[in-house]
């Protein structure tokens, strides 16, 4: 956590929280920063009338100030069967475990700033949804949910994001933690839905190093963890082709994210979660 001491999750747009917070919002409020003038209309608080302007113009104008609100952050964690992979030769924590650590660290960051944190566990459907809240008790709830999550079932991220969108009250930051192996058009449409609502979308793609390079075994009978298929191959003979295909897959996701103004980060299960998040947020702040 020491690595996250000076790191803050800042939204790219304005915050829309219900409570006052450290983030700029499009609401007018009582902050010290002047925003605009507006002509008085009956019902307005006369304490906001700028009397100096009235003296000069003989008209009543109100001084408007920006309101600072807290941030709503929605975490969506994929708990499908593919997230169970922890390696064959190079053993690491399972992808779901790594995703949980990332979510926990991210949640801590959010709640430390007084922002609201929500959590959705998804696979083929929305499994568990914790509405956004800004208390430390919420962190406990989030951690408990992550702790009880088991990787199983198929994946349908598109449908799940649509359900999450339906349950969001206000815009904020959407952080999706998944391996994105089953993304389809519906998923990207769901992402577009969030983006059109001015959500700040961050995709954290969790991969195991063996998924990048294939396991270092002489021969393997590969089976589909979310299906019935199996395929026998000698990794040494097909490694080059597979790498090319997987690179193309990653490039595709990265391209889609860039086109939609989303942030995309590749999280290897061998990485330190806090260090990785620090790297991600610094990169966001510098506009990379």
């Amino acid at each position, binding site marked *: 956590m020491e690595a996250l001491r000076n790191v803050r999750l800042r939204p790219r747009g304005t915050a829309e929280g219900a409570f006052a917070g450290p983030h700029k919002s499009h609401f007018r409020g009582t902050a010290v920063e002047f925003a605009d003038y507006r002509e008085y209309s009956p019902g307005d608080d006369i304490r906001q009338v700028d009397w100096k302007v009235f003296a000069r113009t003989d008209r009543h104008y109100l001084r408007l100030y920006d309101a600072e609100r807290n941030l709503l952050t929605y975490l969506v964690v994929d708990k499908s069967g593919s997230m169970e992979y922890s390696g064959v030769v190079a053993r690491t924590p399972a992808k779901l475990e790594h995703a949980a650590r990332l979510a926990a660290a991210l949640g801590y960051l959010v709640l430390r700033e007084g922002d609201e944190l929500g959590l959705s566990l998804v696979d083929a459907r929305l499994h568990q949804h914790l509405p956004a809240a800004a208390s430390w008790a919420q962190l406990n709830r989030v951690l408990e949910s992550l702790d009880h999550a088991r990787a199983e079932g198929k994946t349908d991220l598109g449908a799940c994001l649509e359900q999450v969108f339906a349950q969001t009250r206000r815009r904020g930051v959407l952080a999706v933690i998944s391996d994105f192996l089953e993304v389809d058009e519906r998923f990207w449409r769901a992402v577009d839905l969030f983006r059109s609502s001015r959500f700040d979308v961050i995709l954290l793609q969790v991969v195991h190093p063996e998924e990048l390079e294939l396991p270092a075994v002489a021969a393997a009978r590969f089976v589909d963890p979310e299906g019935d298929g199996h395929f026998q191959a000698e990794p040494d003979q097909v490694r080059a082709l597979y790498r090319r295909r997987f*690179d*193309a897959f990653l490039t595709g996701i990265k391209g889609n994210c860039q086109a939609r103004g989303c942030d995309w980060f590749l999280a290897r299960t061998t990485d330190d979660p806090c260090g990785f998040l620090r790297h991600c947020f610094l990169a966001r702040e510098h506009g990379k």
Partner: protein
Amino acid sequence: MSGLAFTNPWLLAGLAAVGLPLLIHWLTRARPRRVAFPPYKMLVEACAGQQAVNRLRTLLLLVIRCLLMLALALLFARPIFPAPGAANVPPVRRVALILDASLSMRAVQASVPLFARAQAEAADALRSLPAGSVATVILEGATPRSLLPALSENLPALHDLLVRSQATYECGDPAAALALAQKTLAGSGVIHVFSDFQKSNWEGVRELPAGLACQLHPVTTEAVDNMAITAARLAPAAPVMGEPAEVVCTVFNCTPRPREETVRLELGEFTRENRVTLPPFSTADTAFDVSFSHAGPVAGHVSLEPDNLTEDNTRYLAANVGKALSVVLVSDAEDTDWQSAAFYIGRALAPSPQAAPGINLVRRRSQDLDRGLLETADVFCLATPATLSGEAQEVIARRVLEGARLISFLDGPTAPALLWPALNPPLALERTVTTPTGDAVALAAQKKLGELEAADFSALRFRRHWQNRPPDNRAQETWLAYADGSAALTLSPAGRGLMVLVNLPITPDGGDFAGSPIFPALLHELLRLLRQDPDANQVLPGAAWTLEVPGAGEGALTVSDPAGLAVASQVLSSGRTIRLALPPARIPGIYVVKQAETLVADAAVNVDPRESDTRPLALENLKPGANAPLTIQSGGTAAPPGARDCWPQLALAVVILLGLEMLFLALWRNHKPKRMEVAS
């Protein structure tokens, strides 16, 4: 593929190596491990086609490697395709396979015995016979023998007998084997001969059987390098105690290079070595001086270092050392009559017991001869005047025919009485010729009487002699001759013994011969010649033989071969000596005869020296029989006319397959796509 032959068919065993790549592939194949892999679909999309290609590549490599091994095995076996017209020849149904099992086939060439090669080729030929064929296999030894009594359809049984047959120690007789094959085939069929075609054996085969196709399968095309001892003899053959003797052995260099060899003698208490140098393809003699201190049977051998044909590197010797040579001098003249021949003969042979320790001379008149003396004498010396009784003549003649020696001095009117028809003398005395000045005698060409030379006889003059005319066919038995052609001294075989007729006057009135130093020298040289055993070292493996042993002891005689196995024997005659008939000797070596655990005699059986000359016959010069096509298969030197030796094509195939394998491996290993960089 009918008629396809192989130069080295035993190397077809290498075809088993075809399975080697498959075995290696099976042993080193990867055992798949179950992996639940999340990007499974991506892997399938990327590699589904490639997996089939990889499988195809592996299969292709396996096929190439198997073909490579197949081509290599065939290349070493060197197949020869028959002539194009050969395919039209109807399948052979009557076949005789002659397998040379003579001693020379035991030679090892390129670590493989020639017999094993011939056996493999013969077995191959037998297996390739079409169903319904009848065949026989004849083993060619001293006496050829069929493995089955007649042509047989039971080819598996014949094949089984063939592969279990072994080479013998005998001398091959190809003419007899061909004759047996011709008789067995009864006029139709094919004779296959698998042999080394030794020139020394095959040059006696003037023509192959008529009316039968012959296929010759030489198992080697060049002489196997061989050093051999082709003869070893003891002189005298039956030495006596204390007498100086020598072992003379002949070494044969059957190699194209000069050789220097060490010949080692082990005989009784003697162990000696001689170095002998031999030019290529030549023989040389080397002699060892020996002397025996004890009487009785003695055995040993001379040997060379082992080489490609070890069986002829050792030659065995066996002799019976006597206590003394028993010589009976028969003459009716008085002992002190200096006008008689016996007076000088007795003094020349044994001037005193000390001067001739090896000779036990007994002088008797004709009427004083007793049967016991005659039965035990080694040499009979008859000097005129001597009028032997009919019984004495009969006993002496029988003893000579059984192996004793006889010297008859023919001088004076009673000389014709000493020529007994039973001994088949080489001359007939016609009349006495007297020459006051004396006649000279000359040593016949190519005859050598020890150290006596022709010049030594030129000074001698003889005033009388019996005129005679030896028949032309026995002229070689004359050693000394007068100018008129009469024989002065003859040496003739008589049964198993030897007989010397001396037509020289010994007495002073006949010349100065008795006073000459040549006289005692000639007498002793005649004794030495007489004691040579004409049958020495002539017992050969594969031939029935007889053995004489002293019959003095009690108890049954047992004969055992060099391996210690008992040999069945049959007593032909008994008496002072017992004559045993023995079956053909199986192996060379010393055969011993014991009586109640006491060694009473031994005999040496040696291999035939003709088998040591491994130089092959030029088969092209072998004359085929009338209406009998001759083909020479494999062997490398001469293939059948039109036949095609396809080793160059196989060598090319090996190179191409090897190149293909290397090319494919290089292509498939270097073809690796580069990794695309994805910034996270």
